C-alpha cells in the first residue's frame, strides 16, 4: 500500500472559551479560562462544583442561525451542528465518504430525563421522554446534523472514553492514508451531564480547587464540554502525519504508574510519522495526580524535548471532545505560531523535568506538534500534526 498524504483542510470548534476557531484561538492566546460554577444542574453533595460550560443561550442562537428548529435540539446535537457547520464552511464542496466522531456519552441528558420520568411514574412525562430518548444514543446528534448540512455519509461513533476524539481522528487518518476514503469528516463532542459529573466526582478525580495541570500542588480535573470537527483529505494547511494507539491493561480507571501505555502510543505515532522533530506537545494533562505523573514519565522516556502544555485548565476536560478540540488548538498553534499556555501553573513538580509552557501564551515558530489523549479502559492515543 502506498500511503497517501493526510491533511486537516478546515476545522470547527466550540468550547467554554469560544464559539468558532477564531474566537477560541483568540481566547486561548489571552489565557482566558472557561471554568465557573456549574449552572446546568445542581452539583450539591459533590466535592467539585465547577465546570467549563458552553453558554446555552449563545449555543442555542448559533444552532438556530444554521437551522431554526435546532434551537430545540439537545445541547450535544447543537454543539455538533455548530462545529460541523464551521468545518464544512471552510471546505466548500466537501462531501465526506465517511464521518467518524468520538464521544463518551452522547445526549446523556435525554437518557437522564427518561430515567427520571419513569422513576417518578409520570405517565405523560414518560411518553414525552420516550419520544426524546430516541435522540439519546451517541450517533443521533451526528445523524441529525448531517441531515441538516446535506452530508449523506456512513457514520461511525468511537467511544474510547477520554481518548475518543483522538481515536476518531486516527481512524480517519487510517482511511485516507490507505486510500479507502478520500474525504472524511471527523472530530469529537461531549456535553456535561449529571451522571458523568457525579462519576468523576465520586472517584475523586475532580478537584474542588483550580485545575492545575503538571503543578506540584495539582488536585484533579475540572470537566468541560464542547465539540471540534475537521474536514480531512489529502491537502490542507496542516498535515496529519502520524497516529498511534495502545491499550494499558493495568486497571480500568488508573494508568500503569510507569506510563507504559502513553509511551507506547507516542512511540507508535512517532514511528508512523517517520520520527519527526516535535516542537510542541499538547498533553492530555488532566491535572490528576496519576495522569500527569505517568504522562511526564512517558514524555521523558520518549525523549521528546519540547515545550509542553495542557489546555484543560482553560477548557476543562471535554472527554470525548478533548482529543479533537486539542487537535484544533495544535492546528492553531502551528498556523499562528504560538505556544498555548497551561493556566494556573504555580509550582513546578520536581518529579519531572518537562518544560511547561505556563500561564501566558508566547510566540513560537512551530512546525510540528504532538497531541496526547488517554482514557478509562487504558485507552491511549497520540496524533502528530505538521506544517507542510
Amino acid at each position, binding site marked *: *500500500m502506498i500511503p497517501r498524504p493526510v491533511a486537516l483542510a478546515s476545522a470547527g470548534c466550540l468550547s467554554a472559551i469560544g464559539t468558532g476557531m477564531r474566537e477560541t484561538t483568540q481566547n486561548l492566546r489571552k489565557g482566558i479560562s472557561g471554568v465557573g460554577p456549574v449552572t446546568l*444542574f*445542581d*452539583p*450539591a*453533595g459533590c466535592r467539585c462544583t465547577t465546570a467549563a460550560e458552553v453558554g446555552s443561550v449563545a449555543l442555542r442562537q448559533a444552532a438556530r442561525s444554521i437551522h431554526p428548529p435546532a434551537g430545540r435540539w439537545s445541547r450535544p446535537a447543537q454543539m455538533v451542528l455548530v462545529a460541523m457547520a464551521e468545518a464544512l464552511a471552510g471546505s466548500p464542496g466537501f462531501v465526506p465518504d465517511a464521518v467518524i466522531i468520538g464521544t*463518551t456519552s452522547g445526549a446523556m441528558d435525554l437518557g*437522564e430525563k*427518561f*430515567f*427520571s420520568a*419513569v*422513576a417518578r*411514574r409520570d405517565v405523560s412525562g*414518560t411518553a414525552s421522554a*420516550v419520544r426524546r*430518548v*430516541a435522540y439519546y*444514543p*451517541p*450517533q*443521533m446528534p451526528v*445523524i441529525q446534523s*448531517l441531515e441538516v448540512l446535506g452530508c*449523506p455519509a*456512513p*457514520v*461511525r461513533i*468511537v*467511544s*474510547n*472514553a477520554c481518548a475518543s476524539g483522538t*481515536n476518531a481522528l486516527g*481512524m480517519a487518518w*487510517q*482511511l485516507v492514508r*490507505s486510500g*479507502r476514503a478520500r474525504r472524511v469528516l471527523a472530530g469529537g463532542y461531549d456535553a456535561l451531564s*449529571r*451522571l458523568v*459529573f*457525579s*462519576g468523576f*466526582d*465520586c*472517584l*475523586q478525580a475532580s478537584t474542588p480547587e483550580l485545575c492545575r495541570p503538571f503543578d506540584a500542588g495539582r488536585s484533579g480535573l475540572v470537566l468541560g464540554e464542547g465539540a471540534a470537527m475537521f474536514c480531512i483529505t489529502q491537502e490542507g494547511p496542516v498535515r496529519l502525519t502520524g497516529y498511534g*494507539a*495502545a*491499550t*494499558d*491493561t493495568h486497571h*480500568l*480507571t488508573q494508568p500503569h504508574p510507569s506510563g507504559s*501505555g502513553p509511551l507506547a502510543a507516542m512511540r507508535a505515532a512517532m514511528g508512523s510519522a517517520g520520527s519527526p522533530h516535535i516542537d510542541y506537545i499538547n498533553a492530555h494533562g488532566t491535572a490528576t495526580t496519576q495522569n500527569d505523573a505517568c504522562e511526564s514519565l512517558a514524555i521523558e522516556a520518549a525523549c521528546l524535548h519540547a515545550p509542553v502544555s495542557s489546555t484543560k485548565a482553560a477548557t476543562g476536560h471535554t472527554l470525548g471532545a478533548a482529543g479533537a478540540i486539542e487537535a484544533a488548538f495544535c492546528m492553531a498553534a502551528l498556523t499562528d505560531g504560538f505556544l498555548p499556555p497551561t493556566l494556573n501553573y504555580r509550582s513546578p513538580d520536581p518529579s519531572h523535568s518537562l518544560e511547561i509552557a505556563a500561564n501566558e501564551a508566547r510566540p513560537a515558530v512551530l512546525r510540528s506538534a504532538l497531541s496526547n489523549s488517554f482514557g*478509562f*479502559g*487504558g*485507552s491511549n*492515543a497520540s496524533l502528530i500534526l505538521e506544517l507542510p
Partner: protein
Amino acid sequence: MNIFIHGTGLVSALGRGWPLEGVEPQPVFEEIAGLRLPSLRVPTGATADVDGIPRLRRSGDLSRFAVAAACDAVAGCDPALLAGLPVIFATTDGGVCHTTRFFAPIEASGCGNGSPILFPETVYNAPASHIAARLGSHAEATTMVGDSSAGLAAVCAACDLISAGTAPAVLVVAANECDPLACLAYSRRGICADSAASPLPILTEGAAAVLLGTEPGPAARVEAWSEGPPASSPQAALSVLERLADSLRPARAEQPVILAHAPGVFGLPAPFPTSKKLPGEGHAFTDLAQLVVEIGGDTPIPDLLLLSLGFHGQNAGLRLTQRYATP
C-alpha cells in the same frame, strides 16, 4: 485482499456456542412503569468460565458475555498473536444495567451520591478493556457504538484495518445486555415486544465474536464490505438496503443468498428475509451473531450477502464466499 474468518464465539439466550439444538428459551418478565415486559436472557452459568476472573468481579453481564465470546473466538491462538491483536468492540446500549444502577441514587438524592464502584463499568469501552486484558493484548482496542447495524459495521472497520496493512488480524466482538429501562424504550418505540404475544421480537442479550485475518482459515472468506449513509425515511430505508445489496453483489453468474437484519425499521417489510436461527433482538449483538450462525455448522454455505439496517438508519453489509468444509 482476502480476509478470512478464523474463529467465532457466541453467548446467547440459547447458551454458549453454536449450533445449539433443542433449546427453547423462555422470556423473563420485568416490571417497570406498571408494565410486565418480556426479555430473553442468557442462561445462568453460560459464562461460568469467565465469571471468576478477578478483573470482572465488579463487571456487569455485558463484559462477561463479551469476554466469553472473545475467548472462544481466539481459542488455540498463539499468545504472541494475541499480545498485538487489535480489538473492535461494538455495542448499541453499552453497560445499561450499571448505568441505571449508578444513576438511581443520583436521581433520588443528588449528584453527590454516585458509587465509585459502579461508575467505571458504565463507560462504553469497559468491555473492550476487559477483553484486551484477558487476551493480554496491548494493541488498539476500539469501541464503536451504533444502532442495530453496529455489529456488521465493526466488521467493516476491521476489514478496513486489515486491508490497509495496519494489522494482519483483528478480533471483532459485539454485545448488548437487557435492562428493564431498555425494554421499555424499545417496546414503546415499536422495535421490541411489549408482551409474549406481540409479533415483534423480544429484546435479548448476548455477545458474538469473530476473529478475522489474512491467513487462509477454515471458515468463511469476506470478499467485500460496505457501509452506507443513514436512511432517514421508510422509502430511503428500502432503497438503502437495495443499494447496499447492489454494491456487494458479485460479478458471478450464481447469485448469493441475501439476508437482512432490519429490526423495527420504519414498519415496512424488508425486501430480504431475515436469519431466524437465533431468538429475539439484541441489536449490535444480533447483528454480528447472524454472521456467526450462518457460517456455523459443518455444511458449506452458499455465497451470502449479509445486510444490516438499524433503527436509526445506519447500515452495513458483507459478502461472504462459500465456506470450506470443516476438516
